[in-house]
């Protein structure tokens, strides 16, 4: 018995150290689940002889909780725009200066001076998209480019609407519909917003993330949606039309960043430079179904992606708005509205 336990402890000790013995040629990527193209990773592994591990998270907040303590072992993370702002404030990201790397010339200039990383000293674009809604055009035949369909729907859409279960996406859409500014702490305006949302909710069927399932099962005829999900839903339900509301809409971008104290810093830099090649960006887009912000990648992207109205914005659409993280006071007010709405 004693020798068995001893053997077990030794075995455990061995497993503990294995990780650090082969650390020379490794790279540990922590990205959203089902968001990294294995082909792209294979290409990088072959190119630089580096062994890559990929793990997935389900939200920016989960990722933050895990890496905040340090020692997570990850090199690369892919946070959303507002999360980059938060992580920079907390000094969690390494200043790797991608703007001085050889492939930086491929980054579309419009994605260089962004609010979350002015001049790109820390991060590069991974994927970006918009948060709007998609409607069945055989059920509703009118103009889809207005938020009125969410908040004051015509009779044929009443009770046939799914909203994202996301505080910021719902509240920001509501603020745009009322033509009030984002990150709003004006009590009178928020009171009006609250009343408007409660009234609108009577016409909503569900508030849920599973947009594709809701739409393809014909549970609803309209759903608030990320553009990539809208495109995937259209594959099974061709009548769906993606809206670009005239009142404006949210844009988002996930970005490749290197964690402070990354165990494989040099490999992480190699990876970042690699991710700015049109080939890598195109592989990512083909897998994840979003646009990438790297010029020259379109030529290698799937044809259905380049022509998709969900991915390529029509000329007349307003520019997507990237909403920075709001002050705590505003978030608290929003939380109250959100809790009330979910009652």
């Amino acid at each position, binding site marked *: 018995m004693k020798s068995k336990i001893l053997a*077990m402890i030794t075995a*455990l*000790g061995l497993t*503990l150290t294995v*990780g650090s013995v082969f650390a020379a040629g490794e790279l540990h990527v922590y990205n959203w689940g089902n968001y990294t193209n294995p082909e792209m990773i294979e290409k990088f592994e072959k190119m630089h002889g580096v062994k890559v591990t990929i793990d*997935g998270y389900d939200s920016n907040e989960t990722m933050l909780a895990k890496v905040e303590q340090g020692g997570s072992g990850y090199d690369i993370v892919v946070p959303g725009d507002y999360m980059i702002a938060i992580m920079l404030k907390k000094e969690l990201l390494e200043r790797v200066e991608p703007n001085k790397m050889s492939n930086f010339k491929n980054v579309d200039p419009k994605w260089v001076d962004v609010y979350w990383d002015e001049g790109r000293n820390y991060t590069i674009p991974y994927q970006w998209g918009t948060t709007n809604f998609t409607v069945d055009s055989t059920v509703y035949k009118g103009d889809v480019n207005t938020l009125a369909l969410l908040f004051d729907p015509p009779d044929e859409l009443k009770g046939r609407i799914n909203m994202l279960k996301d505080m910021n996406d719902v509240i920001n859409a509501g603020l745009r519909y009322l033509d009030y500014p984002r990150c709003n702490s004006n009590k009178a305006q928020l009171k009006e917003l609250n009343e408007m949302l409660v009234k609108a909710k009577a016409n909503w069927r569900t508030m849920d993330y599973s947009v*594709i399932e809701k739409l393809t099962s014909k549970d609803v005829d309209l759903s608030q949606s990320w553009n990539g*999900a809208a495109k995937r839903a259209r594959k099974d339900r061709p009548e769906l039309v993606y809206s670009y509301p005239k009142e404006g809409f949210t844009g988002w971008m996930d970005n490749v960043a290197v964690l402070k104290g990354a165990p494989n810093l040099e490999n992480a830099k190699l990876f970042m430079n690699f991710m700015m090649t049109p080939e890598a960006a195109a592989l990512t887009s083909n897998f994840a179904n979003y646009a990438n912000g790297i010029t020259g990648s379109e030529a290698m992207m799937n044809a259905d992606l380049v022509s998709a109205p969900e991915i390529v914005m029509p000329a007349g659409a307003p520019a997507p708005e990237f909403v920075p993280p709001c002050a705590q006071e505003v978030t608290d007010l929003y939380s109250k509205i959100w809790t009330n709405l979910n009652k």
Partner: protein
Amino acid sequence: MVDSTAAPAKKMGKAIDLKYQPGFSQIAWLCIAVLYAPIAVLVLFSFNQNRSVTVWTEFSFDWYVKAMNNEGIRHAAWVSLEVAFIAMVIATIMATMAALVTTRTAPYRGMNMAVGVINQPLMVPEVVTAVATLIFFAIIKQLTGVSGIGYLIAAHTAFCIPFAYMPIRARLEDMDLSLEQAAADLYAPPFKVFRRVTLPLMLPGIMAGAMLAFIVSLDDVIITLFVAGPGETTLPLYILGQIRRGVTPEVNAVSTVFLGLSVILVTFIFLFGKGKK
């Protein structure tokens, strides 16, 4: 044990046998439906031809093939089994020793406290344990520079112990001391008593405990989410990561395989337990 509980049960049987109360079978079937209908749907849609988990088109094995070829799923399944197996073995050994020392000795000071400490992971909210473990391990990692899957196994072992402990202890409490006393009376040394009398008698409890530990480790999400390091995504974590981008029937296929596995395991344990009696 048989005598003490069987007699009152018989007496009560005449007065109120639950099985013959009005509505018994209806309620029982309702409960069974609520518990198993979702699983039946999950299994059904793993054979669906299109990518939807809600709209049926036609029967196919496509998603099983896809799941088999998916490196991420294969790796996650392997990590899950590896962690669950090692945690099960260590937790069961520790739980067996703990159960012996809390039932087979004369009561001693601090025994109740020891039981409390062993069962602590059941009382503390899981997320608290998870965050505490995350911070604790982060400190150790930074101090020693040692990383690897050992941390995850250690965390799983810790919360598996009470699950393994409970059935083993229950079994030991049901076992009459007189057999062991008789063996000792016939000059069997303590270790021989343990090996020839106690251990065979408590084996069903150990098997039950080990299986419980294995299952609990296999489907843990919260602690794993916080503790798992690079390349240590378990199957539940893999599935969780899919939610934002849409779950595909690949997940149904893997879940069905794991379901089949646990059914086989339960059947095996059931037959094993029967044979012993």
